[in-house]
Every structure is written in structure tokens, then in C-alpha cells.
């Protein structure tokens, strides 16, 4: 379909919708009116040309959401969110392309350079027209060819709904049901787009899905939904996010990620989150409420979460594993950095249901400025989970004396054979450490970066190679100016 025709269709659709559902829709911007009603949900589903079952799923989620209250148990403080003051659907609009890098916020450019992001990529990330040489479309095609050869499905979830409805229907909402929590219900009702990935039996995905993702989906949505299925004996390493500072005009983000691994399958899911954290004075910034959960459905399956969280004004996020299959393994490696007025309440849940299941939790919190950083984790061993093992290590590092670090570990075991270990430490970057580095010629900023990276090494080592390097720099940049 030509673009022109597509645009025309969209326009028609919008006008129809406007009429049919009584929307006041600005045709030019192609977005829904502010606020959330059942009509909004229908509008979104219609815009995306979704099958009836998906509309029903959304509507059930919406109706359930109405009965829920925003959770208040997290150690987070923010003014109340007005859910009726949010635009829930806005068609992807071609952004105004900038002529050259001179038009970009110099602060942003500075960060790009510190991260060592290539010029071409800088342009792409900030919306400058990219030279044909590095045309992302051609890169995409190359990747798609490789993936197709292995029958790997990797596309947007909207495309998957159209082209692989059976798979989506079979798995959507099975790991994170819409009843799970307030934000999960909200996402289920209004999710805009996201990624879908299916790795067939016995296939080891030959590429990090990161590279592709980075090039093609830098602009992730406000209500993103990701579904990842690893069939028997398959493997995939998936990377979400970007180390580059991400600006987004939407303040509220509520994403869902669901992972299912069948027998002997393994998924390694890495995240680098660097959304706008707000100003140094604590104004603005993204509220990031994310539900991420993996189901180790099959025997000997494994799900490993690695996250580096440096952005957002508020992070509420607990990537979890349900260890259902016998001998299945769950891992959670996390570095969460907060500076200035940022708040993070993050951690994991490891639910041991199968026999001989194992989980490992390594959490490294780093707080600076006037920020607050909490680890919140649950390890639950059910009655039938014989010989379950968990090892948890939660470390907090404080920079300065105005920030806070908190640890809330919950352990529930219903089986006598379980072995659960929890270790926690809190430390500070000492003046002695800084002076020692400085005496060797390393300036204060670099010294902080060095010390923090050393502290977070265990987790950074779990990231795909090229990203580990960038993440290291990112940590240093995030903490710039945090010590006197």
C-alpha cells in the first residue's frame, strides 16, 4: 500500500471513528482525545484493526482497572496522576527532521559524545536525517533475512496480532494477567505497541536482538507491550532500551513484558533504561511503572533478567520469574542508580513452584544527591518445590549524606528442603577512596565512575559485551557532579 493511500485510510478511519464514537479528534495529529473511557479502548483497538478477542481482552482489562486503586506500598512519592489528562492514543507521526546536529540541545550532544555513540547514531536518535549509508531500513532487512532463515518471528506486537494471531492469543496475558496490578490492567487496556518474538523449537537465535532493536525501535511507546516466547530447547538474548538519554513527552510509562520459556529453553533479557530523569531540581521526568515477568514453564528452562536503571524520575519495576518447570532457573541482576531527586523502588520476585528450582538475585543500588533507592524483593518457595535454592545479595552504595537506600526483602518458604540465603551490605564511597584515586592522577569525576563501576561489575558483566562498555560510561555520567 502506498503511503499516500495509507494516510488516506487512516484519515478516513479517524473521521469515521470520530463520528461513531463521538470523539473530538484532531485529524492532523491523529490522536485520541484526552482521557480514558471504554470508548478510548474501542478506538485504539479499532485503529489497530484488532480482532474481536483482543478488543474483549482490552475491555475486560479496562473494566477491571476501574475497580483498582493505584498501589501505595512502594517507597515513592509523587503528585497524584490524573489519568483523565492523558492522551492514550497518538498515531506515530513523522517527526520533523532536523537539518543537522547543530540544532540539537548541546547538553544532549555532550552526553552522546561521552557515551561514545557514533555520529550517525546520534543523528538518528535525535531525529536528524540519516545518511543513506547507514540506512536503518537496509540494516533491518539484513537482520530480517537472518531471522527468517531460522523461522524466528520478530516484529511489532501489532504486526503479530495481524500475522500470528494464534500465537499472540495463546500467550498474551498468561504471565501477567490484566488482573495483576493497577498498571498492568491499564497497560492491557490501552497498550499501544511493543515487540513480539517467537523462537521456534531447538533454535539458538544467532544474533543479539539488541542491535536490531536499537536501530529500529528507539522510540518506544508510552504503554509498551512485549511478548517473548522461547519454544523447547531454544535460546535468545534480547536487549531492550538504549544508553542514550531518551526524551519523551509522555510523563507516564506503564509497560508490560511477558516471557515464556518451554522445556530446556533460555531467555536472557537485558535492559538499559535511561529515560529523562527530570531536572536537577526534581522537575519533570518520566514516571516508569513497569510489570515484567517471566514464566519458566518447561523443565530445565531459564530466564535471566539484567537491568541497568539510570533514568526516570520514578522507577517502579520488579522483573520476576515464576519457576514452574522442574529444575528451572531464574536470575535477576540489577544496577539501579538514582541521583538528584530521582526515586527508584525496584527488585524482583522469584516464585519457586517446581522441584530443584534455583534463583539468584544480585542487586546493586547506588544513590546520590537527594534521591531514594529501594530494593524490594520476594523469594517464595511453595509447598511442592522440593530442594529449591535461592541466593540473594543486595548491596547499597551511598554517595553523599542526603540520599537514601532501603532494602525490603521478603522470604516465604513452605517447604523444609528449601535453602534461601540473603546477604545485604550498605557502603559509602569514602573520601579515602577518592583521594587514593586522585593521588594517582585520576580526577574526582573519573574516580567516582571507576569506583561505582567496580561496585556494579558483577552485574555489568552480565550485559552483552558492547552494551557493558556503554553502560559503564552511562553510570559515570549519571553520577556526574554528585560528589562535592
Amino acid at each position, binding site marked *: 500500500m502506498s503511503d499516500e493511500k495509507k494516510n488516506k485510510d487512516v484519515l478516513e478511519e479517524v473521521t469515521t471513528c470520530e463520528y461513531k464514537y463521538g470523539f473530538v479528534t484532531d485529524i492532523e495529529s491523529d490522536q485520541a482525545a484526552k482521557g480514558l473511557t471504554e470508548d478510548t479502548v474501542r478506538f485504539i483497538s479499532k485503529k489497530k484493526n484488532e480482532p474481536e478477542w483482543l478488543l474483549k481482552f482490552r475491555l475486560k482489562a479496562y473494566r477491571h482497572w476501574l475497580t483498582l486503586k493505584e498501589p501505595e506500598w512502594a517507597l515513592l512519592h509523587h503528585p497524584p496522576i490524573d489519568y483523565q489528562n492523558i492522551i492514550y492514543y497518538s498515531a506515530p507521526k513523522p517527526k520533523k527532521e532536523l537539518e543537522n546536529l547543530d540544532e540539537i540541545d548541546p547538553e544532549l550532544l555532550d552526553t552522546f559524545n561521552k557515551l561514545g555513540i557514533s555520529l550517525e547514531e546520534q543523528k538518528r536518535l535525535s531525529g536528524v536525517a540519516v545518511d543513506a549509508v547507514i540506512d536503518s531500513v537496509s540494516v533491518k532487512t539484513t537482520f530480517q533475512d537472518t531471522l527468517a532463515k531460522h523461522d524466528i518471528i520478530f516484529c511489532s506486537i501489532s504486526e503479530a496480532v495481524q500475522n500470528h494471531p494464534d500465537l499472540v492469543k495463546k500467550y498474551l496475558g498468561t504471565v501477567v494477567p490484566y488482573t495483576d496490578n493497577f498498571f498492568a490492567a491499564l497497560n492491557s487496556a490501552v497498550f499501544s505497541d511493543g515487540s513480539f518474538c517467537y523462537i521456534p523449537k531447538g533454535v539458538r537465535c544467532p544474533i543479539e536482538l539488541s542491535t536490531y532493536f536499537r536501530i529500529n525501535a528507539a522510540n518506544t511507546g508510552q504503554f509498551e507491550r512485549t511478548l517473548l516466547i522461547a519454544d523447547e530447547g531454544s535460546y535468545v538474548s534480547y536487549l531492550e532500551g538504549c544508553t542514550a538519554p531518551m526524551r519523551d513527552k509522555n510523563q507516564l510509562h506503564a509497560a508490560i513484558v511477558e516471557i515464556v520459556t518451554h522445556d530446556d529453553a533460555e531467555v536472557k533479557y537485558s535492559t538499559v533504561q535511561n529515560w529523562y530523569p527530570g531536572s536537577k531540581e526534581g522537575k519533570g521526568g518520566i514516571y516508569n511503572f513497569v510489570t515484567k515477568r517471566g514464566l519458566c514453564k518447561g523443565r530445565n528452562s531459564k530466564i535471566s533478567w539484567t537491568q541497568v536503571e539510570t533514568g526516570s524520575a520514578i522507577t517502579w519495576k520488579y522483573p520476576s520469574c515464576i519457576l514452574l518447570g522442574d529444575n528451572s532457573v531464574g536470575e535477576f541482576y540489577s544496577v539501579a542508580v538514582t541521583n538528584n531527586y530521582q526515586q527508584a523502588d525496584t527488585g524482583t520476585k522469584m516464585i519457586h513452584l517446581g522441584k530443584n528450582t534455583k534463583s539468584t538475585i544480585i542487586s546493586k543500588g547506588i544513590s546520590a544527591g537527594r534521591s531514594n533507592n529501594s530494593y524490594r524483593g520476594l523469594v517464595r518457595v511453595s509447598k511442592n518445590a522440593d530442594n529449591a535454592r535461592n541466593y540473594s545479595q543486595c548491596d547499597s552504595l551511598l554517595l553523599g549524606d542526603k540520599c537514601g537506600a532501603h532494602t525490603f526483602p521478603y522470604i516465604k518458604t513452605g517447604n523444609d528442603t528449601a535453602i534461601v540465603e540473603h546477604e545485604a551490605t550498605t557502603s559509602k564511597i569514602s573520601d579515602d577512596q577518592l583521594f587514593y584515586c586522585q*593521588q594517582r592522577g585520576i580526577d574526582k569525576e573519573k574516580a567516582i565512575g571507576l569506583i561505582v563501576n567496580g561496585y556494579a561489575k558483577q552485574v555489568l558483566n552480565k550485559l552483552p559485551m558492547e552494551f557493558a562498555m556503554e553502560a559503564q560510561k552511562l553510570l559515570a555520567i549519571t553520577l556526574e557532579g554528585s560528589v562535592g
Partner: protein
Amino acid sequence: MLLNIKNLHVSIDGKEIIKGLNFSVNKGEIHAIMGPNGTGKSTLAAAITGRGGYEITEGEIIYKGEVINEWSPDKRANEGVFLSFQYPIEIPGVSMTNFMRTALNARREYHGQPLISAKEFLKKMEEKKKLVQIQSKLANRSVNEGFSGGEKKKNEIFQMAMLEPELAILDETDSGLDIDALKVVANGVNQLKSDENAFIVITHYQRLLEYIVPDFVHVMYDGRIVKSGGKGLALELEERGYEWIKEQFDD
């Protein structure tokens, strides 16, 4: 003159520790600073290297012809001042290799030189490790973490060898060392010694000075240098202790 300290007064938390100290060092010299505990020897090292919390209330530290009172510690280091710490600091998760490379490159950056290549760096590491008889695996361990007392001190000398300072201050590098480690440390210093650099060796005991032979020995007492002499002074102190010095100045 490499270092010239004039009428230096240093306070910690408002309490004056160094009370009008004069001291100078030329290239090619080794100076030993001795004296009883609590007379300001380590404070002097801290003041020269710019450690936080040590306030210079009066006087000047002139290094290579410039007053460096206000220089940051890293600037001083990059200009060639090195301190072998009395209590080396642990930095978990940062390998010695990474630490040294960062330090070397910081220096190069400071002087506007290109960064060191991986090959050149590794070669240098190997060479300098031999100098202080440091075990290979030490370089892959985190900075000072889990090192024994002797290993920590050797590691300081190793770093000194890597950074090739113009002015090296050894703050009680001999304390807690057995005789073998002491010889290794001294041997390292002697090999690095040249006409282009100088050493200030702070110590309680004459023992180290059997291996690192000083050109000058100074005695510090109550925040000042009260007596200077040749290496014979160290022997005299060893024999007579510090009491006679104290008696002279306690009036």
C-alpha cells in the same frame, strides 16, 4: 629546587599540627624524615599531596617553581607527586590493571599525550611487576582488596614504578613489613632512583635506611623539623631514641 616548603602551618579541624616547617628537596636526593609518633610526619605528606581536611593556614609549598597550595590532588599527581600510602585503600571490583591504565591515561591526557596502547601498557606492567617481585595474579585482583599487609606495600611501590614520579613520598612504607618484603621495597626504590627524581622517606626506624640510603635525615618534632643531618643522624637516633630531642625542645 624540586620542592621548597616555606614556613608551613597545617591544621586539622582547627588544631595546628604543623607549626612553621621549612624544608627543601633537590632532584637526585633522598630525604628521610624521622620522629616520634604524632609529630606531623604524615600530615606533611598529606599537605604536599593535597589531601582534603588538611588546611594550610600559612606558608607555601613550592613545587617545580610554582606555589601548589591550591592545586587539586590529581593535578599534583599528574605533575609528578606520588605518595606511597601508609594504609593503602581498597577499591572493590576495580582491577589493578584497570586502575593503573586509568591512572596512566589520566596523566597522558593531562599532558596532552596520546593514550597508552594496550600492548605498550601490558609490556610496562610486566616490566614493573618484576621490579617489585609482584605475582602476576595480583594485577588482576581488585585494588588492594584482600591483599596482605606486605602485598599492599609492594603494590604501592609497583604503582610508583608504573607512574615514574618526580617526587615520591613513602609514608611509613616499612611499617609491618618483614625483612624480605622490606628488601624488595628498598630495591624497587633504588632502581627507580635517578638524577631526575627525589624521594622523601618517612619512617620511625633506622632499619629501612640501611637499604635506602638517605642523603639527608631530618627529625620532626612538634610540627617542625628540629634537626637535620646526614645518614649518621639516623644511627644516632636509633641508639639514643628521641628522648634527648624531646628534652631539647620541650621547654
